């Protein structure tokens, strides 16, 4: 039966590239040794400038591909360099790559992880201590809310957030047949910001997305180790000689720092002190990756074990092996990844419950990772 292996010193890396780059980037990542690239179709967000017809016919948002890879910390630097090089992120490319430190990773033995040459004994060049100056803001929100949040984020200076689709689970599934009347469709928003901007962007996003409305969504931040951001937030008229981003970068260089970009967070500071949002602290985010067909059983287990709610996104894994397969008509395997936000002391209990269900239902490919949550905001009763 499946047994679980625990690993440390692994980071969760998000690589987000334009759709037309995806094939070459996946190939590269596989050649670097990853066997677990989860690919999800994503869209970028841009605020549009332009003529009247852009109001009636909104331009399509950039089509992106979001990939999640678990990378051992010792490979991180090399991995970043290579991906940035191949995806031309440093030039005009639009893309985003960042890594989040994972506290711990459990995976069943059948789950494809980094290839065997684990290089436990190689010199650990990487940075195990976390930087404090970058954070990622993530949000699960009702379908349709992501655009509002994106606008809030962009107007407060962030890059264009990346949006993927997900499904929410929780109370809805406990309603008998009437659950059909509630859509489970959610959007998952992610954006990486400088810590100087974090509070402003966070509060602007919370406000724009009305995150404190009941049942609206869940907004949280996690620390980021390393990031490379090149996603425009504004769709500009091509007549400008320099983009707003280039201007900002030039000013950064002139000033020698980014402090000039810090703005006062008036919204939450000045008015209604009474209604100041209560942030949730001391939470972690537990993610469980499993084949899509089996994700429901594990969600049930997690909910039974006391997780308040779950959201599940779907993507496909194309590992190095299937790439080699000569069969032209190979089929993609679909994966679901279940996000749970829970208190740290509950992690082990819920994990055990999911593991038990996985063993019971004969699910051989499961992987867990836990990432810290700095603060979170949602509707609280």
């Amino acid at each position, binding site marked *: 039966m499946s047994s679980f292996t625990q690993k440390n010193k692994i980071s969760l890396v998000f690589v987000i590239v334009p759709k037309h780059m995806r094939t070459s980037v996946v190939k590269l990542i596989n050649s670097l040794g990853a066997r677990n690239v989860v690919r999800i179709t994503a*869209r970028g967000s841009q605020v549009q400038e332009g003529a009247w017809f852009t109001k009636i016919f909104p331009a399509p*948002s950039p089509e992106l591909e979001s990939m999640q890879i678990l990378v051992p910390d010792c490979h991180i630097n090399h991995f970043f360099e290579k991906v940035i090089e191949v995806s031309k*992120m440093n030039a005009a490319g639009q893309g985003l790559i960042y890594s989040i430190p994972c506290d711990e990773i459990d995976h069943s033995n059948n789950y494809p992880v980094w290839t065997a040459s684990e290089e436990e004994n190689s010199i650990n060049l990487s940075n195990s201590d976390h930087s404090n100056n970058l954070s990622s803001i993530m949000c699960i929100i009702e379908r349709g809310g992501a655009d509002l949040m994106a606008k809030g984020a962009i107007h407060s200076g962030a890059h264009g957030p990346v949006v993927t*689709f997900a499904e929410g689970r929780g109370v809805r599934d406990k309603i008998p047949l*009437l659950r059909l009347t509630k859509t489970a469709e959610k959007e998952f928003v992610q954006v990486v910001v400088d810590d100087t901007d974090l509070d402003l962007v966070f509060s602007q996003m919370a406000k724009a997305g009305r995150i404190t409305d009941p049942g609206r969504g869940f907004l949280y931040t996690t620390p980021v180790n390393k990031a490379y951001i090149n996603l425009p937030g504004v769709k500009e008229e091509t007549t400008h000689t320099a*983009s707003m981003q280039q201007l900002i*970068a030039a000013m950064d260089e002139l000033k020698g720092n980014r402090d000039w970009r810090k703005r006062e967070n008036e919204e939450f500071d000045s008015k209604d002190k009474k209604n100041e949002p209560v942030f949730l602290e001391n939470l972690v985010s537990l993610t469980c990756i499993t084949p899509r067909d089996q994700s429901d059983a594990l969600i049930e287990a997690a909910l039974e074990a006391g997780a308040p709610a779950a959201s599940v996104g779907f993507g496909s894994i194309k590992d190095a092996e299937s790439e080699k397969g000569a069969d032209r*008509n190979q089929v993609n395997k679909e994966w679901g990844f279940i996000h749970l936000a829970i208190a740290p002391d509950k992690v082990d209990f819920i994990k055990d419950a999911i593991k038990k269900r996985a063993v019971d239902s004969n699910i051989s490919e499961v992987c867990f990772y836990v990432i810290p949550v700095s603060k979170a905001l949602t509707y609280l009763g």
Partner: protein
Amino acid sequence: MSAEQNYDKNKLKLSFGETLGILWPYMRDKVVEQLQCVWFVIAYMIFFQVFIIGLPIVYSLTIAIGIFIVILGLAFFMEGLRLGLMPLGDVLGSTLPRKKILGLPCIVSSLIFAFVLGAFATFAEPAIGVLKQAGAGVDPTRAPLLWTLLNTHSSTLVNSVGIGVGLAVLLGVLRFYKGWSLKPFIVVGVSLLTALTLYFQLGPHAEVLKVVLGLAWDCGAVTTGPVTVPLVLSLGIGVCRSVSSGDSNNMGFGVVTLASIFPILAVLTLSLVLHSKGDYYTGNNFSAENLEIAKIKVLEVKAAKESAAAQSSDFIPVTQEDLASYKNGEILPDSFVTQIKGGSPEIIEGKLHLKDAEIVYLRQPEGATAPDEIWKPGTDIGELFTNGLKFEVFYDDVTNGALEGALWAIIPLCTILLLVLILGLRQKPKYLGDLFVGIACAIAGMTLFNLGIGLGLTPLGDQLGANIVGAFNAIIPWEMNGMVQPLFNENTGKAVAIIFAFILGYGATLAEPALNALGSTVEQITVGAFKKNLLMQSVAIGVACGIATGVAKIAYGLELWYLLIPPYMLLIPITLISSEEFVNFGWDSAGVTTGPITVPLVLAMGLGIGTKTNAIDGFGILAMASVGPIITVLCVGLLVKKKPNVDATDIVSSETDVKEAA
């Protein structure tokens, strides 16, 4: 297993009040959503009839109730698509490439299944009813081959269209497996169609063949209905999710495009075959029994024409009372016009005199009176609802009740899909209960929808269609007594009719359920990058242009090929330079635009104008409504296209320093 039961116990028990509390806002939202789609076109039609044409709405109560039922039906049907039909297509599509049926390789079984599905969809949503309606007034002596196709050989027509759609779905699915682009299919298909059309129009047998063109092109527009489109779309998406290698841009679209091109080819081929065999009215090999039917029809058409001519006489007889009051020296009312007949002109003292001329006073009809009933007499909801489960399924859906139409459109297709899924692929759908609720919703929705169309939309469309002619021609308004004079002179009137058609086409398209489904699917599959609204608005404007052109064709008696060939020729280069996504969306939307809302509203107008301008048939409008949206969607695609990245070395981008921990 124990855990499973344990979970079931966790299910919430809802009180009646809570149930209502969940259901009520849900239902309200769904109805409001449909109301937002439909209100514009309805309000516009009523406004036009009352304020522009200046006539009251006849049978207003029937129409109002019908429209209410349509909205209710749409709300149910769209939920049925979301919960039942689309998940079913999707799960089947994503399972087909993984498992074998009866030991056949996946690709073979998928292709066989695709063919069966396509062919069956044609029989399930028979477009032949619509086409027969458009060709109702066809005179066998003027258009022998067209008449033959629509009457004595209508079963052959449906069969060949079915084979055409089957082949189209087969090729569409094969395309997904192989990761082929849609563009070559379009270029080859359109070139072939153009060549055939030119042959029909200008070839040696043009006089017999060219009248079929309208039917053939319209066939392409109407074959894909509101049940087939979502099923085929979701099936394609499922297949693509499983087999797409990531290199191609195939996302599951494009089948509908092929399913629009192939039926045209099928009908044109069938016409050629019948023509070469001489198996048509006035042909050499037309069978005797069919000849009898044709002869009866010829007489009928003749009689209908005569009675129409008698009806549309331009004046009202003057009565004895009129004569008496005239003799009393009273002035004649304004409705009298003077006609001078005969006489010999000569010049007397520099003036032209007519000697011995006869002066005739004619009384022109003035004003029309609407019937008092607000409920259309003879309308029995029960009868419209069901005809006692007698299925008139195969070649004539006109007599089907609303319920039978819905059952026939949905049950067989869903049964095939479920059988293949459960017995063939041995895959039990995860939420079988949800699926059945969805399918039930779809059937209920379709039934209400059909009923509402019969009660509300058809009379409203017929009414407007007949009355819009009044803009440029004297008419007896629909179901009224009396006659009204043209509102404008001929050219202004026709222009008004064309503008009317434009706005009508725009509004009706926004309400089309298949297009709404396509729009949501596009939004879903691109993770919201392409907004539903972008597609809907571009398509609606395209349809509006197309329908306006189609009405102009009928009003001015233009030849269809003048209007069809240039746009399609234009489309080939546009298609080649457009992005693969927009090509897929644009061409697919062409197939879905002409659905159950547009057709009754638009066709009636085409027929109404056609009878006044002495057109052979009412065909062509739907074909035009099909080509319009392709052009607009592709153009919008080119307009909003992101500029390709400038040479990467030129720009040193900003904010790009790798941030690292110290």
